[in-house]
């Protein structure tokens, strides 16, 4: 009989569903990232002097620092789960497209990082007493656009570093410089939204984020197959 390659979207969905099932059962990475995020919110809150810096000026930076580092925790797990018992060999021995594998991994990471953000944003709002209701749709849009870029870059570097002895160190070292072009416009746009500025004022930042998303998603998808070569 022998097999054949399933279509791109079917493969991506298969990989993403498998990763999310494993994460749902173990919950190890999600809880690690969540606990880290909430602790970071608390630490920033208690080390903050409200008389020196306004909450509205501090919160965007806090939010994106937390998103970046908590995201890294999940991204590290993405290919780490494939290293135990060399499950990665099982994936690579299958006739699936490497690009579809990347898409599936990135989709699962997107859900993971998004889930952490869903809890972190209200926590920041609560700790810094920031009313978010009006700006929530805009903030969600910024978070979604920025997360796509962060996840694309993070998934690529997670694959590159997964089977190295210093994966925990190498992943942030390699990924963080590439996160800068995403985090800067995301923090700038978030600051304006939290300040109650109209959406039109952040449109330029959103376009910049979308442009970086296109560049990073395309580049990472194309480069990914080469990271799997021995």
């Amino acid at each position, binding site marked *: *009989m*022998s*097999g*054949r*390659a*399933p279509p791109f979207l*079917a*493969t991506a969905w*298969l990989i993403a569903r*498998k990763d999310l*099932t*494993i994460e749902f*059962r*173990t919950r190890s990475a999600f809880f690690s990232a969540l606990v880290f995020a909430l602790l970071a919110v608390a630490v920033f809150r208690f080390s903050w002097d409200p008389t020196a810096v306004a909450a509205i000026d501090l919160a965007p930076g806090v939010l994106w620092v937390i998103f970046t580092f908590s995201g890294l925790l999940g991204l590290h797990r993405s290919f780490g*789960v494939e290293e*135990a*018992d*060399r*499950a990665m*060999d*099982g*994936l*690579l*021995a*299958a*006739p*699936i*497209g490497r690009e579809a594998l990347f898409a599936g991994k990135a989709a699962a990471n997107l859900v993971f990082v998004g889930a952490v953000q869903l809890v972190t944003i209200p926590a920041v709002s609560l700790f810094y007493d920031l009313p978010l209701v009006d700006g929530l749709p805009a903030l969600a849009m910024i978070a979604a656009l920025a997360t796509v870029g962060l996840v694309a870059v993070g998934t690529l570097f997670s694959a590159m570093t997964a089977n190295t002895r210093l994966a925990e160190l190498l992943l942030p070292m390699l990924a963080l410089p590439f996160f800068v072009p995403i985090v800067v416009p995301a923090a700038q746009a978030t600051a304006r939204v939290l300040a109650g500025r109209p959406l039109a004022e952040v449109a330029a930042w959103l376009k910049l984020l979308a442009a970086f998303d296109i560049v990073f998603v395309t580049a990472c998808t194309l480069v990914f197959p080469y990271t799997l*070569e*021995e």
Partner: protein
Amino acid sequence: MTAVAANPDTALPTTPAPAAIEAEGLVRAFGPRRAVDGVSVAVAAGECLALFGPNGAGKTTLLRMLAGLLRPTRGAARVGGVSLRDAPAVRARVGLISHHSLLYAALTARENVAFAARLYDVPDPDAAALAALERMRVADRADTPVRRLSRGLQQRVSIARAMVHAPDVVLLDEPFTGLDEVGARALTDAIGDLKAHGAALVLVTHNLVEGLALGTHLGVMVGGHLVRLAARGDVDGATFAAEYRALVAG
């Protein structure tokens, strides 16, 4: 089956049967070191090449090249009639069994095998998974998470995973590692079935008894070279074992 060694002294006469695996001068270098150095071999449908050799002889590297996991530095090969250059098509025809389980500990045995079936676009993957688990006599533990299975049972699930798409070519890297008597018998039966159904097999093992029992051809790799190749019917087991020990000893 045709088996051809790089060394003309070890070459076997060719037969008209079309080879499911044909490798010609395969080389794989890691930096300056050649893990596999000019290996030529052919295995026809329904036959099993048992490949022996000490650690670091290049057996696993050869297997990984034939599985489409490693790109050869030089040389060419066709697996299941497809050139290694078309790696996805090669991978669709190959089942890989390793001494690593290649399984996800958090998923059940059935989920692991069904996941593999879907990776190969097997019709009705759940039924195929259950059938593969039954074949390896582990269907009664189908819904147990793999992390709760013993090493031997994990290996049986791993073998079911590799065979779920009924591959034309099966590459086995130390598959008996960790198997108990029942598991070893199930694997031996499965290998017999695969041969009977026309699959070509390459079995890498350190265990001479297993290799001699299952191989229709026997090969020895040392230092990246295929230094001995013979049809099983042409050699006496005890003589081959003595030759092997002499070759490995240098």
